[in-house]
């Protein structure tokens, strides 16, 4: 795993596609890489891909945000600390289908407003289909999540989101730049029910290969949320700038800046916030 894996969340392989083809001789095939040490050093490992791939990462992000309470009041700037542990499994099902399962435990610790600190548990399962390598990907998924307050252990929110979406990207600038676009629709069935909502999200971005181990990224996302049980609609704009540096094969760091503008029909829910963060991720 490396920075690209983080940036591209690589998806794995399985079954028919991964089945090795042995030809000539007695028809036997070998699963060992049969590469010398120097060959691995210069070319990387070239071996048959595992049918099912497991992954995991531990990360920590420190961020300062100008409006930690996410209200119209800008006087709630705070430093937040986000430790996260994540694991996943990925399998290619053949004919362009891929299945992915990801589970995550994350936390946010507020330095000033400790009553806002929380711990979250979530899982994401995705079935996607890409008919041809350069065509857009179409996917459906489910994401159950739950957040508990550190303050009193009480439930903040829990829901299951059902998503359908598509995304697509293309390289240009001699392959040094990747542009990508995406759209998704998610309906969250929440408990308490007042958090139940439908959400449309459009996303566009660019990833640029600045140096062999350095990537820059610009992302813009627009989101429309409509709540089922309360009279509230939100329009949210998110702009993000990332710089990711790969320290070694398993470790990378990301410096990030962001701006969020949430325009809600509910006065208290409208806010703007700006933030800067520094993260470190160890992938295995």
């Amino acid at each position, binding site marked *: 795993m490396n920075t690209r894996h983080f940036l591209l969340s690589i998806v794995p392989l399985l079954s028919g596609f991964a089945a090795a*083809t*042995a030809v000539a*001789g007695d028809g036997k095939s070998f699963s060992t890489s049969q590469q010398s040490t120097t060959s691995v050093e210069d070319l990387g490992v070239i071996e048959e891909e595992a049918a099912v791939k497991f992954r995991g990462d531990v990360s920590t992000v420190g961020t300062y945000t100008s409006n930690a309470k996410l209200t119209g009041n800008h006087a709630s700037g705070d430093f937040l600390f986000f430790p996260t542990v994540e694991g996943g499994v990925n399998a290619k099902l053949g004919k362009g289908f891929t299945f992915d399962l990801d589970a995550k435990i994350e936390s946010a610790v507020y330095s000033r407003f400790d009553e806002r600190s929380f711990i979250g548990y979530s899982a994401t399962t995705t079935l996607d289909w890409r008919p041809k390598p350069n065509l857009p990907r179409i996917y459906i998924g489910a994401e159950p999540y739950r957040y508990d307050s550190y*303050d009193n252990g009480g439930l903040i929110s829990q829901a299951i989101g059902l998503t359908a979406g598509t995304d697509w*990207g293309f390289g240009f600038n001699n392959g040094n730049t990747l542009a990508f676009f995406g759209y998704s629709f998610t309906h969250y069935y929440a408990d308490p029910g007042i958090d139940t909502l439908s959400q449309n999200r459009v996303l566009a971005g660019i990833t640029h290969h600045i140096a062999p181990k350095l990537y820059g990224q610009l992302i813009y996302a627009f989101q429309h949320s409509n709540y089922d049980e309360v009279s509230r609609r939100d329009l949210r704009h998110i702009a993000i700038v990332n710089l990711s540096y790969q320290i070694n094969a398993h470790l990378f760091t990301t410096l990030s800046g962001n701006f969020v503008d949430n325009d809600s029909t509910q006065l208290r829910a409208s806010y703007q916030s700006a933030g800067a963060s520094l993260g470190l991720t160890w992938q295995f």
Partner: protein
Amino acid sequence: MVRAVFSKNRLRLLPILTAGITLSLLSLAGHGAQFSEATVTKVENTVNYGEVKGGRTNKRPAVASDVVHANNFLLTETESRAELKYEDGSVVRIGQNTVFSFDASSRTLSLDKGTLIFYIPKGAGGGTIKTPSLTAAITGTVGKVSENIIAILKGEVTLVPSGLKVGAGQFARRNADGTITIAPFDMSKAFDGKLMSFNGQMPGFDLNVLLTQSTLPANLAVFDDLERTQNHPGALRKYFPEPKAEKQKKDKKPQGTPTPTPPPPPTPSRRPRTSPSPTFRGNL
């Protein structure tokens, strides 16, 4: 009469045909010329340039901007690498402990020992890659090569003499028992290996290749976490509870037939962490 006209037309066509054939021959010769020499664009540590003259082999250290002629060879020692560029845009990077040569007339890249990666642009005339155990016909292709492995990152090669195709994301390997295995490899590791970034990103191979197996390269999870825990209606109700007066008003809504309800058991009161908001309007 008809014959005369035809003859006349044939005479007119003759110079055009002659010019066409000449141009074609020149074009073919051009391809050979474009491949008859390559310029060393980068050298790391100890790289030697070898010449065979009158049955004797002469070696001297290679330096950047050296011009390597067909049928001469390059040798690298441990932790040494070099990059060659051809006039047709082809690029070859050779790894450590490698012996490499090329032939102009057949456009053959020969790896006697070690590792290399190559890029042959589309329309450049193709060529052949030859190792001690594998030979493949190449067109517009990017690939990694060791003595017993040819792995294709982009495009396609055809193994000689079997005619078997090895496409992008696949490798061909000559096994110890003489069989050849053709199987997919993990394209998420395509950028791995020191040669891939030896002199900047390998031309002809872009991030889009990785995207074909990826999800969108954007991580908005932190923004979702904060939104769900700080700004969703449930969270706002938690952190900005309704003032008691308003709550009581709502509770006193007229009912059809009042039913007696037992008084609630006394519960220990908990000190609220946040004060009721004077601007709260309810119905989040």
